[in-house]
């Protein structure tokens, strides 16, 4: 099948393209900033989708994992190796951010695997508050003022690289026995148990993987914004990620990409959108900065989405070119 090798080729071309953009500064700073933000949001969205979409749980603590990753990576690059400025260090720092988040996610999953639905939501909410408040109380990382002096290391090629790695790994997970296990748990946990599915192991593993990429995204975010403080990773950040997941579609990687792209562009677009000044008859209006209203507009979109398309744009469906070839072969045979 042609599309089998088309995707890797596309990825390589995309990567070369990002390198060229970075090197010759083809795009202005703002465009690159938005593109990197989209990338980070794709990672956040896809990883949260693993828990909220595929596993059917409701975690609101994803910003907490993001925060853990951001702080862990920044401590490495700012505090421990401040004078080393190599891509290798950055790579290791991002991995370290992911691992710290994954470890904490693993512990949290062990604690909470018995709970479902509302209860897991409350536990993850509590976790989020613990992370934020702990960071505020640790003076080593600047307390509530936050951590300054982070280098700008999150370039477009790095972001692209991590987006591809995230999507590839999560895709592999979903189309493996673990993926089928967590989907079976979502559909019917009692039946999953009766089929011998190792429900506890599958849940914990998927949750830790999701946290890992939350941490990766956090590490990239810190080195993009170059400043982090505990309140960057509060419930609002979690809400943003949730909006992306439910906008794009639960249980769909294509949906995660779509959700992150649409959300980020809409967010940036609304930020700059000004209405007026103008005149309607004798009525002079504006100028209105819609930017300050975006957190009214975005949730409103979410409400409409839940009413008319509760599973999101791509809910539970997937682009065929995302599936591993073995899955496609059986499909083709049938058609």
């Amino acid at each position, binding site marked *: 099948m042609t599309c089998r090798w088309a995707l890797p080729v596309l990825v390589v071309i995309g990567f070369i393209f990002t390198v060229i953009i970075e090197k010759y500064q083809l795009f202005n700073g703002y465009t690159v900033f938005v593109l990197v933000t989209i990338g980070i949001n794709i990672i956040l969205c896809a990883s949260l989708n693993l828990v909220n979409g595929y596993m059917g749980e409701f975690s609101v603590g994803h910003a907490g994992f993001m925060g853990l990753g951001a702080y862990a990576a920044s401590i490495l690059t700012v505090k421990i190796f401040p004078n080393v400025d190599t891509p290798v260090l950055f790579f290791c720092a991002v991995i370290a951010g992911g691992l710290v988040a994954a470890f904490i996610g693993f512990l949290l999953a062990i604690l909470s695997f018995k709970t479902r639905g509302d209860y897991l939501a409350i536990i993850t909410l509590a976790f989020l508050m613990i992370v934020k408040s702990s960071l505020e109380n640790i003076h080593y990382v600047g307390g509530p003022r936050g951590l300054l002096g982070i280098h700008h290391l999150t370039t477009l090629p790095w972001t692209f690289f991590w987006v591809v790695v995230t999507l590839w790994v999560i895709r592999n997970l979903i189309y*493996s*026995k673990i993926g*089928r296990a967590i*989907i079976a748990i979502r559909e*019917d946990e009692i039946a*999953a*148990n009766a*089929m*011998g599915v190792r429900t506890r192991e599958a849940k914990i593993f998927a949750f830790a993987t999701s946290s890992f990429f939350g941490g990766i995204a956090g590490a990239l975010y810190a080195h993009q914004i170059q400043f982090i403080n505990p309140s960057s990773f509060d419930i609002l950040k979690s809400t943003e990620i949730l909006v992306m997941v439910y906008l794009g579609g639960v249980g769909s990687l294509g949906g995660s990409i779509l959700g992150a792209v649409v959300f980020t562009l809409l967010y940036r677009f609304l930020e700059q959108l000004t209405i007026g000044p103008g005149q309607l008859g004798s009525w002079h209006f504006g100028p209105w900065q819609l930017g300050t209203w975006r957190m009214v507009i975005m949730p409103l979109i979410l409400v409409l989405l839940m009413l008319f398309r509760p599973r999101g744009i791509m809910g539970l469906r997937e682009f065929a070119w995302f599936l591993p070839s073995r899955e496609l072969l*059986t499909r083709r045979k049938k058609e």
Partner: protein
Amino acid sequence: MSALLEIKAVTKRFGGLCAISDCSLAVQPGSTHGIIGPNGAGKTTLFNLITGIYKPTEGEILFKGASIAGDRPNHIALKGIGRTFQNIRLCKELTVLDNVRSAYDTQLHYSPLSALFQLPRVVRDEKQSIATCLELLKSFGLEEFANHRASDLAYGFQRRLEIARAIALKPDILLLDEPAAGLNSGETVKLMEFLRWVKENFKVTIVLIEHHMKMVMGLCDRITVLDFGATIADGTPAEIHSNQRVIDAYLGGDSDDE
């Protein structure tokens, strides 16, 4: 011959309600064992106790001579007890093939970490799993629906898929909870043939909860009758048929339920 599955003086209380009281039964390997009784007699509770969904309040459950009472449901399943449910429980959003695969996955032994990076072993195991499960679906006459969502199947096919899924686990014993529920008499006759074939082909012992007397009498080597959570009779179909207590408790009241 030692029993494959043995329930010894099991009692299960839910608060003040005694769902199963001092129930005992033994299922011989290779047999088809029927469990009958009026509604609310505790038949499904008994299945839930065997498969670990409930823990017995008192008593012992032995499978292949080892105690399984209070074990986790998925561990019990892996030891070789497959089951179906009275109200069909399929993974509705998964395809027919993936329903069977998710049960067959317990036979795949690659590590979760290797799955993340899709190492060659994972690809090989998954390919083999697809082939095996398609083969299984074919023998169950479900191959043409392999890529349909399970919830799109007709009711009778869903029942069949549930049995196929239980078989994918490679169980020694298959617990069927009212497989004929909702079928007409023609379909029930077909189901009987089908169950005989399943038993023959996959070498499983079958325990069957059923209200269809014709089916139970026709299929089972041995029948246990429950009433109010207690065993009131145990014997061959002929013995049960002429047992006065059974007729009083159950058959006498609604033997004309067809």
